[in-house]
């Protein structure tokens, strides 16, 4: 795959330049935010920017008092619940779809995919009514369930394409040994598909973690997620940029840790099926 070096000096320079530019584009806002979070309000707004300043941790102290820590717990619980539900429901469904053929399969899988296309603002009111009837408003469960609208079709679609690429001999051998379909799925398919399932789990987690609109409308006090709290704090009495910056930085940390080791899984999982 690696082409011989001679004709490619220009290309390598281009590549390094491009990569450097992208890295700056990605990192700079975050670094700037991190710096701003340590400034006083006046210093954060100064133009030209103050370069030398004594770090001020007031913003972070405010955060500890603001209930953002609860929001982390909420976001995390919601995302994990959502991952488990997506997989528990999605894996068998994707397997069934993968082992179907013809028009029914095609229509069904397109239907699953198209469900993702409903504009969120328009389904909020009915979802609100639904969860109100179920008595689930402002619970983590409600948000987890609502996030299924986004994540279940996604995981079914990704897993389906993956399962379809798996050789049929595996199932057939198991079936010949007298295994029931669910046994085949659990004993044969799932172990083989573990990297892909891990990758879907990571993607689903990220979607749920980032989602704002549904979480915003369905929660009020007890179940607010990180993006909802961030949005709420940012708009209050004064636009306290250091505080917003500090909140933003904090809101990234858990997810960054998570993605640090999980991003490899995403690529591996996607590579082993979904986009082939």
């Amino acid at each position, binding site marked *: 795959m690696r082409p011989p070096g001679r004709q490619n000096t220009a290309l390598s320079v281009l590549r390094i330049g491009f*990569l450097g530019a992208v890295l700056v584009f990605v990192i700079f806002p975050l670094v700037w935010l991190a710096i701003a979070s340590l400034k006083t309000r006046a210093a954060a707004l100064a133009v030209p920017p103050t370069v030398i300043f004594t770090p001020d941790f007031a913003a972070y102290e405010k955060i500890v008092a603001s209930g953002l820590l609860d929001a982390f717990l909420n976001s995390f619980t919601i995302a994990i619940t959502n991952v488990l539900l997506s997989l528990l429901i999605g894996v068998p469904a994707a397997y069934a779809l993968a082992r179907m053929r013809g028009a029914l399969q095609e229509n069904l899988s397109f239907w699953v995919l198209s469900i993702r296309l409903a504009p969120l603002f328009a389904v909020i009111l009915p979802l609100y009514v639904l969860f109100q009837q179920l008595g689930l408003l402002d619970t983590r469960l409600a948000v987890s369930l609502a996030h299924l609208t986004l994540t279940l079709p996604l995981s079914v679609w990704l897993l389906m394409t993956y399962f379809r690429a798996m050789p049929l001999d595996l199932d057939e051998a198991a079936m010949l040994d007298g295994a029931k*379909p669910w046994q085949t799925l659990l004993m044969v398919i799932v172990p083989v598909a573990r990297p892909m399932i891990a990758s879907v789990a990571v993607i689903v987690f990220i979607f749920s973690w980032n989602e704002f609109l549904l979480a915003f409308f369905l929660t009020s006090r007890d179940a607010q997620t990180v993006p909802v709290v961030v949005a709420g704090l940012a708009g209050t009495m004064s636009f306290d940029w250091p505080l917003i910056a500090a909140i*933003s930085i904090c809101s990234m940390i858990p997810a960054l840790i998570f993605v640090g080791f999980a991003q490899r899984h995403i*690529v591996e999982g996607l590579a082993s099926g979904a*986009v082939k």
Partner: protein
Amino acid sequence: MTLDWRFWFLIPMIMALATVILFPTAYLFWMSTQHWLVTDPDRYFAGLDNFLRLLGGSDFWQALRVTGAYLALSTILMLGLGMGLALTFARAGSGVMRAIVVMPLVIPPVVAGFTWRFLLNGEIGFIGAFLLPMTGLDVNLLAEPRAALVSVVIADVWSRTPFMFLIFLAALQSIPRDYYEAARMDGANPFHEFFFVTLPMLRGALFVAVLFRLVDAINTFELIFVMTRGGPGRATQILSIFGWRTAFQELDFGQAAALGVVMLAICLTAAMLVFRQFVKGDPGTTGT
């Protein structure tokens, strides 16, 4: 014959999706036929009135134009950037660099919006108030209509490109190496390789990427809202913000629902076209 096992495997999914989606969608269709103004105690059947009003007014078309421009601009940039990154990382770049490039993926869009607003703001932003004036350009990035659209696109590209990148990287890694070797034997240069080997092999990935982009763009809300509130004026008011304003500010639920139905129709059509183009045309790309 009793019901096939596949049926039982599908039932939980169908039930789950029916609850969280079919019911709301049915409700949406019903709402779209109602004269339902929160300010008006009378709620009654209005037939297609909401649709006629929506399509007959200028707001919808304005929002559609903005959405189109926003979608096109951001998609081109994201695909280009994502593809460029994937090609680069297939040959160079360390795991640490890759982790850095992927970082924005886990940053909630609402945070991304604030971050960029902070940078681009024309009075206090490092880019908007310091770097840009030094270059002699006198434009307020968030308050000049065209610049504002570009600004929200930049923030969106920053926030969502990593996902494109990962999709493409995954796809690149799954292209068998002998394809390249064969091409090289035929005397192909890197550009030939890209256009005749890589690109055709990326069709499936492109499909997934474009589809994700479509869904993402349709539901983009908070990123734009925190940056410009859809302004100045309506310059960055994409359909989702227009819908939100109609429903929750102007309190016209019927009209908002009609917009929801129209958006759903547009998206379905678009998805079907993409689906045809990429999947049906070439069965090999779905992995079968």
